[in-house]
């Protein structure tokens, strides 16, 4: 389950920010490790909603620091 989410997230990261899929591992920080800026995070949130049906509210987006944080959020909120 979380592997599927990680793979889906990796696809989004590659499309939006050019992150190599192998680099999209749970411990990676979006800003520190993957060079994803705040505007790209907004795009990623939109893409997550499309792919997983999970909306990330703005006040939650700020708490998502790592790929692992995003995986957990999606897992927790998926229907």
């Amino acid at each position: 389950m979380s592997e599927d989410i990680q793979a889906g997230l990796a696809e989004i990261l590659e499309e939006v920010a050019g992150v190599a899929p192998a680099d999209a591992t749970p411990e990676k920080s979006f800003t520190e490790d993957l060079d994803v800026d705040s505007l790209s995070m907004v795009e990623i949130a939109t893409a997550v909603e499309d792919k997983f049906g999970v909306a990330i509210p703005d006040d939650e987006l700020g708490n998502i620091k790592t790929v692992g944080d995003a995986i957990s959020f999606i897992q927790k909120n998926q229907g």
Partner: protein
Amino acid sequence: MSTSDRDVVVTGLGATTPLGGDVASTWEALLAGRSGISRLTDDWAKEFPAQLVAALASDPATQIDRVRARRLDRSQQVAVIAAEQAWAESGAADAGVAPERIAVVFGTGIGGALTLLGQDDVLEQKGPKRVSPFTIPMLMPNGPAAAVGLAIGARGGVHAPVSACASGAEAIRWGLDLLRFDRADVVLVGGTEACVHPLPMAGFAAMRAMSTRNDEPERASRPFDKGRDGFVLGEGSAALVLERADSAAARGARVHARLAGAGATADGYDLVAPHPEGEGAARAIGAALRDAGLSPSDIGHVNAHATSTPVGDTAEAAAIRSAVGEHALVSATKSQTGHLLGAAGALESVFTILALREQIVPATANLDDPDDDPAVQALDIVRREPRKASLSAAVNDSFGFGGHNIALVFTTA
């Protein structure tokens, strides 16, 4: 000519245009008489009175990384492509110039129109939450200058003159001033435009400013010709690296030409129509000559703004005749490139510099039957074939809706 610390030289050139993806291929196509103009095949264009464009010869996607490109409007993409070419050619990156002494001046006429209009479609069809977070940095008219500044690491100021079709030339003038006032040591200047889209096309057509010679694309842009009926919208960008002559010489930089002077005036006549006698344009040329310390007789070549509109070309011919005289060889290169709006002045400055460097004046295509206007008749407009010439100084004119007039004087290195 002596080298003083006010002397400014051009040490790098870059361009992506309807004639080629770089300066060399663009110049070769220009001298070969090739046209960059074609008829739109898009469905939307079928009902349009003017269906011609001068599209980029080289798709930006082949010249810029995908992820980088998706955060840049097309006008920014081509600006970055041209700027990086000029920057690389100048060798300034390896010269150890402090980023705080590198400035950028990059103009655009329209800005990120494709982004503005594309995201408006997203807004209408999918709602506000689907509008891209990159919408504003992609549509703002300083966006190209900012993207270029980031690309070359400029921290000495990034500026974006906006004066319609004079924007590219105004950027060059602004760069000259920055160097003369010692605000920077190296300035990357240029202009960009990419707005081939139904709305700008419909807007210009509504002004009756565009050629409707849809069945003869390559013959549509015909500056100074009796049969001219408007301009052809082009897209692309051109960039130049400027620095003071003494510091360029100290680092052994290749010098293409000297930027000897600039003049800027306003018509104060009408929002869009040029003064019929080209009064403001002539004043700009006169001011540029005085700034360069040259006489009209020194000018061997004029790259005219000449967009192929009925009123604009005759007004400019009058201005050239009164401010320069009848001896200079005149070229109207929009006959092959189309009108790149905010990039036009930068691209035509590149052509002016190459004419000086190579001692050859490009021809004006499609000038089969020169207008009966006495000034057009009096000028020596080069046509049919490029003409070899002995040139020491040349002028590039640029004018923009709003009554903006910029003249730039270049001299041989």
